[in-house]
């Protein structure tokens, strides 16, 4: 940051007088994404989650003496793909460095990472607030670099000083670390960034972003800029670790911003008075707590890894990866809004469900010829089902073609909305197609003469309602529609209404 801050001491009264309007929250994020490769970054061991401990390791990923790393081509390609989707400059020359520190789940005593020549340089990601909580913002990305994951340490939590157990299955799994500039101004923006990032990564298929498996992890850097006494000060930066869901991230950042303001009001300490601190988010207690600093953790003694050679990336390779990317979420939203008339919020919800839902929608919208109807049905019926069942769209019992057939009948007036929903439910319950469901429900076409005699009966039997309509109370016809449904559930209510009005000359 080029801004400079003063570190004057303000007295208690001045500090107390600072209002929330004088405070800006400054947030930067570091996101680790596990790239979806079959094998590890530097050896052929599997990256599959959940195998028994220490069954997916070899000489290379356990750092046996004499073993050497060789880079996984797919990890490079997925990194480039991610960089392109995030508008990053793609390096034409990228190299590998060692980050040296001791930990039992780091077999070589160093992590192979990238220091000064990351595979992806500066980029950006635009975020918008789904419900308008903040103005649209462009979050600049500092870089994204490729590195190997560490293994897993399981410490004895009993406080009795038992041994720690080490599982190296995860060691060497490829991670892309995406680092933003301190560009976010609220926890909600941070959450929106993470949500959009995850969406992009899953759309382009570089990671499944499964947070339970640790395939997407995020740390946040947060501090406050405070306008006080005509000057601007900054509070010490805190890095928050262990934010293991987006909701947790939002809460942790919010908690930390509040804590920092309170602390500053108490002690007046600014960024000049304290080094960066690391705190962990405790989800159970909803607080951040100080993390024990790793001894000399700051001195990683980076230097170029002499076991690996540089990688050059050709323009042609970048171009061919570009072609694999397809539409990104923002482009899908724009398409849905502009070409299918969806409201921005609805487009956001639809796209937020993933590419398969969008594709489902497009098949239905194009097939039935009514985007608005398709959007309502997919947005309400389908998504409700998926939310309730927790299933993905490929598990939804009604295919896009069947949904299209159903909505085509609605669009043609052969089925009204209410009946159509009954049909849909029957299709789901009995796992049958549209026509079979209609047959099962006894739905058949009603011809004009039947409609006319039905309307004549309704007029004859309800003279007082007819009178109300004639007196100008148009809504009164609703009572007749209800009765019509009882007499003949297959009669189209719209048609019944129109016929009655015509017959009574209203």
């Amino acid at each position, binding site marked *: 940051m080029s801004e400079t801050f003063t570190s004057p001491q303000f007295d208690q009264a001045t500090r107390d007088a600072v209002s929330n309007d004088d405070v800006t929250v400054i947030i930067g994020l570091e996101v680790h994404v596990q790239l979806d490769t079959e094998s590890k970054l530097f050896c052929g061991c599997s990256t599959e989650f959940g195998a028994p401990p220490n069954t997916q390791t070899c000489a290379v990923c356990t750092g*046996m*003496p004499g073993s050497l790393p060789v880079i996984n081509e797919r990890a490079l390609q997925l990194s480039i793909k991610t960089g392109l989707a995030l508008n990053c400059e793609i390096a034409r020359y990228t190299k590998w460095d060692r980050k040296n520190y001791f930990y039992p789940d780091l077999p*070589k*005593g*160093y992590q192979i990472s990238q220091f000064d020549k990351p595979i992806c340089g500066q980029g950006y990601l635009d975020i918008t607030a789904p419900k308008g909580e903040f103005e649209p913002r462009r979050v600049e990305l500092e870089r994204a670099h490729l590195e190997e994951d560490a293994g897993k340490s399981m410490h004895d939590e009993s406080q009795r000083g038992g041994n720690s157990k080490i599982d190296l299955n995860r060691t060497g799994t490829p991670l892309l670390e995406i680092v933003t500039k301190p560009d976010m101004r609220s926890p909600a923006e941070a959450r929106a960034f993470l949500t959009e990032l995850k969406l992009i990564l899953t759309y382009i298929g570089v990671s499944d972003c499964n947070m339970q498996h640790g395939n997407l992890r995020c740390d946040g850097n947060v501090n406050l800029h405070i306008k006080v006494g005509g000057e601007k000060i900054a509070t010490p930066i805190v890095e928050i670790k262990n934010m293991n869901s987006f909701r947790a991230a939002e809460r942790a950042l919010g908690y930390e911003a509040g804590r920092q303001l309170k602390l500053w009001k108490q002690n007046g300490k600014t960024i000049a008075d304290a080094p960066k601190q690391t705190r962990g988010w405790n989800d159970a207690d909803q607080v951040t707590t100080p993390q024990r600093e790793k001894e000399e953790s700051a001195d990683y003694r980076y*230097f170029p890894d002499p*076991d690996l*050679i540089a990688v050059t990336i050709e323009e042609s390779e970048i171009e061919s990866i570009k072609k694999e990317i397809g539409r990104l979420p923002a482009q899908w939203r724009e398409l849905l809004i502009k070409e299918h008339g969806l409201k921005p919020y609805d487009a956001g919800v639809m796209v937020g469900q993933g590419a398969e839902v969008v594709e489902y929608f497009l098949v239905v919208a194009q097939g039935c010829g009514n985007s608005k109807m398709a959007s309502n049905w997919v947005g309400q019926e389908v998504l409700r089902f998926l939310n309730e069942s927790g299933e993905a769209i490929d598990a939804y019992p009604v295919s896009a073609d069947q949904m299209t057939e159903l909505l085509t009948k609605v669009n043609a007036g052969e089925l009204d909305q209410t009946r159509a929903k009954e049909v849909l439910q029957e299709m789901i319950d009995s796992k049958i197609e549209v026509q079979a469901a209609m047959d099962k429900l006894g739905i058949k076409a009603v011809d004009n003469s039947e409609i006319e005699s039905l309307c004549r009966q309704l007029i004859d039997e309800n003279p007082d309602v007819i009178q109300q309509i004639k007196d100008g109370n148009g809504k009164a016809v609703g009572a007749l529609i209800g009765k019509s449904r009882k007499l003949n559930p297959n009669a189209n209510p719209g048609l019944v209404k129109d016929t009655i009005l015509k017959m009574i000359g209203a």
Partner: protein
Amino acid sequence: MDLSTLSAAELVKRLSSGELTAESCTESFLERIKDRDSSLNSFVSTAESAISAAQAIDERRSTGQAVGALAGLPVAVKDGICTAGIATTAGSRMLEKFVPAFDATMVKQLLSADAVVIGKTNMDEFAMGSSTENSFFGVTKNPWSDQHVPGGSSGGSAACVAADLAPVSIGSDTGGSIRQPAAFCGITGLKPTYGRVSRFGLIAFASSLDQIGPMARSAEDCGLVMNVISGHDSNDSTSAKNDVPDFTQTLNDSLKGLRIGICKEHFGEGLDSEIESAVNESVKVLESLGAETVEISLPHTPYAVATYYVIAPCEASSNLARFDGVRYTHRAATAKDLTEMYCQSRAEGFGEEVKKRIMLGTYALSSGYYDAYYLKASKVRRMIKHDYDSAFEKVDLILGPTTPTTAFKIGEHTQNALAMYLADIYTVSANLAGVPAISIPCGLTSAGMPVGLQLQARSFDEASLLRVAHQFQLQTDWHTRRPNA
């Protein structure tokens, strides 16, 4: 029949003709090791599996099946190179009980050529040293004088060949660790071009400098081994893809018109006068074979040792971080917590020289010093490489002494590390630049100690080194002189 003095080429010939079986050949060398190595200490271990491996080769040969180029030839391998199922210690207490699950690529190549690995040779711990005094398994003695060191770090590999305990051996060279002991022990040792021989399975000291190579009694024998161990390995990212010639095919090509540069920086202060005259005599031999000699300069030579002692310890400090007491190393029995486990295991498992170099490298890479040490040294390294590039525009080979002195006495330099480091003064540059270099015997001093002649060539031109060395050896008999003969 005494097999011990036969060349590898001759042994291979007799094995191939059926005059000799692999089993009897292997037995004979193992027997010699048993008889003579207790005082020499060139081996850390001998391979129990050697006899059965030799029998299997005989069996295949007798039933008419194909056998490899080195079928039945006994080979000794430096103990810093991984051998599956055979303890591999790198001369360190840290790895006293380590048994690798895999063979180094180079060992695989030897085995698939049907060579017989007869044992693992002693070395300075993690190849850090120039005397083989820094081994957890004791000092190796120079076969020419039990008062003297064999050189290092591949001292065991040099001594066992010089003492006829193995016809050929494998060493590794980070700053001179093949050539300097070859010179001290009166044998031929080749450090190939960086990338020529796979490093996969070589326990790393300094990854950008380490290179495996052959040690033997003649250039021809080195060539035989080079034919087997050279070539690209997809498991080593730094392995070169260059074509591998048949190194034995061009041994007899004429030296007429070959331009040999005499590096003036290799004849300065500190060079033993007897070595200087032996080298000058060698120049005359090569001239008589048609080579032209010119004086050249490698102007950054005076800084090579300093450059090396920044880069090698920096890489080593990181390479040796994996020896942490968790997966395969010595662990201190007394450690109560994680930090103690690290600090005590490493304090106990590493010897003094290794600890010193780790601390040196740790310091040089630490915050605030990177530019002054590692970065600066890497830039000087570029200048050293430039020196070679310029020189090789004018000449085909560079000639000079391998070492400034002959083998020093055991204990002579143990209190003066810098004096020890300067034993590598003529050899480290080749590692820094990546070029190949060979040391061949070119004389004996009045005290009866061997003198080494070093030849260096362009990257991937080991063939020229072997050719010149071979023809020199056709004209001279220094390489056939044996200790106590």
